[in-house]
C-alpha cells in the first residue's frame, strides 16, 4: 500500500532522513519508533504530502504521490493525520471534529451523529460544546484523533497520539485503534516513543535511527533480536556489553567481556568484536550460596551495585566484572534479602544472549 523508496529529507544543511526504505501493507499497523529528533514526524509529514522529500519516492497504491500534483487532493483525502502537537480550530470541540466531514459535503444529521459517536469513543462525551482552545493537553490529543478518525480514512497517520495521556486513556485509545484497524481494515502508521505501545499495537515496527530504518520487523523480533547495539539499547535491552569471541564452534561461542567469559549461541568466529544483548528479565539473581547449576549456561558471581524502583518491580544491578541488570519484584528482593553490596550470582542461558556485531559510534 505505502512504499518508501530511498526517501531523504534535508533542511538547509541538516540531513534528517537519508535513504528511508520500507513497504507497509494494506491493513497493516506499522509503528515507527526512534529517538527524539530521529525524523519520525518528518517522515509522517512527507507521507501526508505536507512536505516534499529532498530525494526518493513515496508511492501509495503504486502512485508516486509527490509527482502527481493534480491528484494530491484525492490522495490527501485517503489519509487522516493526528499531529504530535495538535492544533485546535478556534471553535467548539464538535465543530473541530466535523471539519473533515464538512469538507466532504456530509449532511448535517450525519455529521452530528458521527461527531457524537467519535466523542464517545475517545472518552469525551459531553465536551462537544466546549471551546476547543480550552481543552487540556490530553483532551486535545483525543479530539485530534477523533477529528482524523471520523473521515474514515484508508490510511491513518498518527504522530505520538497518546504522548499526553494517562495510562487509562491510553488503553482506551489503543483499543480504539485496534478496533478501527480490525473493522475498517485501515492501514495505520503510528509514530511512538512508547515501545510497549508499538508492541501492543503494531504488526511490524520500524526503528528509525541515524536517518534510516535500522531494523524493521515484528515487535518480538525487534525486542528480542535487535539488529545492532543502538537498537538494543533503544528498545530497552538493559544489558548491552561489548566483547571479543575467544572460542567458537557449532553455533556456540565463548565471548570474553573484560576478562569474564560468557557462553552464547552465535555464528561469529573467533577474534570478532561483538556485542552481547541480554534482556534483564532473562537474568536470575540468586544469593551467592544457592546458585543452581545451569547446563551450558552462565553463572556469574558478583555483588549488588544498585537497586532502583521500576514500576512494581525493582531493578537490581549486579557487578560481575561488568554490570548486569535484572528485574525482580519487590517481594523477591525482600525475600532474598538483597541489599546493595550483597554477594549474589547472576545466571542466564546461552540462548538468552543475543549477539550482534559491534559497531563503532
Amino acid at each position, binding site marked *: 500500500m505505502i512504499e518508501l523508496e530511498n526517501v531523504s529529507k534535508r533542511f538547509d544543511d541538516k540531513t534528517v532522513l537519508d535513504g528511508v526504505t520500507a513497504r507497509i501493507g494494506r491493513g497493516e499497523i506499522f509503528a515507527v519508533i526512534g529517538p527524539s529528533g530521529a525524523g519520525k514526524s518528518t517522515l509522517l509529514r512527507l507521507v501526508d504530502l505536507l512536505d516534499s522529500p529532498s530525494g526518493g519516492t513515496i508511492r501509495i497504491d503504486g502512485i508516486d504521490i509527490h509527482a502527481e500534483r493534480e491528484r494530491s487532493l484525492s490522495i490527501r483525502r485517503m489519509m*487522516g493525520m493526528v499531529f504530535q502537537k495538535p*492544533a485546535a*480550530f478556534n471553535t467548539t470541540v464538535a465543530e473541530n471534529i466535523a*471539519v473533515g466531514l464538512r469538507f466532504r459535503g456530509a449532511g448535517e444529521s450525519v455529521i452530528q451523529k458521527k461527531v457524537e459517536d467519535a466523542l464517545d469513543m475517545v472518552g469525551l462525551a459531553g465536551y462537544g460544546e466546549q471551546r476547543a482552545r480550552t481543552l487540556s493537553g490530553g483532551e486535545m490529543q483525543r479530539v485530534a484523533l477523533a477529528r482524523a478518525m471520523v473521515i474514515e480514512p484508508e490510511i491513518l497517520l498518527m504522530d505520538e497520539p497518546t504522548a499526553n495521556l494517562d495510562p487509562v486513556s491510553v488503553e482506551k485509545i489503543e483499543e480504539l485503534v485496534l478496533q478501527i484497524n480490525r473493522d475498517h481494515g485501515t492501514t495505520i502508521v503510528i509514530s511512538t516513543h512508547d515501545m510497549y505501545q508499538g508492541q501492543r499495537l503494531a504488526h511490524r515496527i520500524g526503528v528509525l535511527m541515524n536517518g534510516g530504518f535500522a531494523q524493521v520487523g515484528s515487535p518480538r523480533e525487534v525486542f528480542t533480536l535487535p539488529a545492532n547495539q543502538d537498537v538494543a539499547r533503544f528498545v530497552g535491552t538493559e544489558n548491552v556489553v561489548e566483547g571479543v569471541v575467544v572460542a567458537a564452534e557449532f553455533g556456540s561461542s565463548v565471548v570474553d567481556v573484560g576478562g569474564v567469559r560468557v557462553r552464547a549461541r552465535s555464528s561469529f568466529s573467533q577474534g570478532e568484536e561483538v556485542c552481547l544483548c541480554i534482556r534483564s528479565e532473562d537474568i536470575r539473581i540468586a544469593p551467592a550460596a544457592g546458585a543452581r547449576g545451569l547446563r551450558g549456561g552462565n553463572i556469574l558471581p558478583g555483588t549488588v551495585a544498585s537497586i532502583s524502583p521500576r514500576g512494581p518491580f525493582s531493578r537490581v544491578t549486579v557487578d560481575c566484572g561488568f554490570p548486569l541488570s535484572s528485574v525482580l519484584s519487590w517481594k523477591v528482593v525482600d525475600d532474598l534479602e538483597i541489599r546493595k553490596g550483597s554477594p549474589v550470582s547472576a545466571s542466564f542461558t546461552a540462548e538468552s544472549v543475543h549477539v550482534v556485531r559491534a559497531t563503532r559510534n
Partner: protein
Amino acid sequence: MYEIIEGFVEAARLIVTLDPDVMAIAARSIVISLTATILATLLAIPLGAAINFGTFPGRKSLINLIQTLYSLPTVIVGLLIFLLISRVGPFGSLRLLFTPTAMVIAQTVLILPIMTGLTISALSGVDPVVRDTLYSLGATRLQFLVNIMKEARFAILATVAVGFGRAISEVGAAILVGGNIAASSFGSSTRVLTTAISLETSMGNIPESIALGIILLAIALGVNLAITTVQHR
C-alpha cells in the same frame, strides 16, 4: 473651540431633523465606501492568501511593493483613475468620470494594497499546524481559504475595518474622479461626506464641517459594531 460644540449641536440637528441633503450625502458615502470595501476584500483575500501561502520568486519584493503602496496618496490614485477614465483616456468612452462608479473604482484601488498587505500579515499569524491540519483533512483550495479566514477572523476583520475606514475617510480621489457634484438626482450626485466636509471647510463653515465629521464617525461606528460582532463570534 466654540465651533466644536457648535459642530455637535449642528450634527444633532442634522440627524434629528433628518436633513434630506445630509441624509442623501451620508447614504451615498455608505454605499460607495461599503461597495469599495467589499470589492477590495473580495480581491485582497485571495490575493493575500496566494502571496502568503505561495512560494514563488520575487515574493518578498512583491510584499515590499504592496507595503510601499500603503503610501499611495489619494490624490495620485484619483489622478491615475482620472487619466484612465477621462474622455481622452483609454476608458473615456465609458463616461465614468464624475460618477459614483468612478469613486468606487478609485476607493477600491486605494485600499487594495493596504487590505492585501494586512491580509498577508493576518494569515502569516495563523499557526502553521492549523494550516497543515486543514490540508490533511482534505480541504479544497476554497475550503482551505474559508477555514483559514475563520481562524484569522479577528485580524481579517480588523483589515476590513482599516479598509473601510480608509475608503470612507479619503477625499482626494473622491473629489478628483467624483467631482463633488451636488445634482438634483441622487444617482448623478457625487457629493459624499468627505467632499462635503472639504467644501464646507474651504468656505469657512467649521461647525458644519465638524457636524458632517461627526455623522461620518457615527456611520463608521455602526459599521464597526457590525464588524466587531462577527469578530468576537
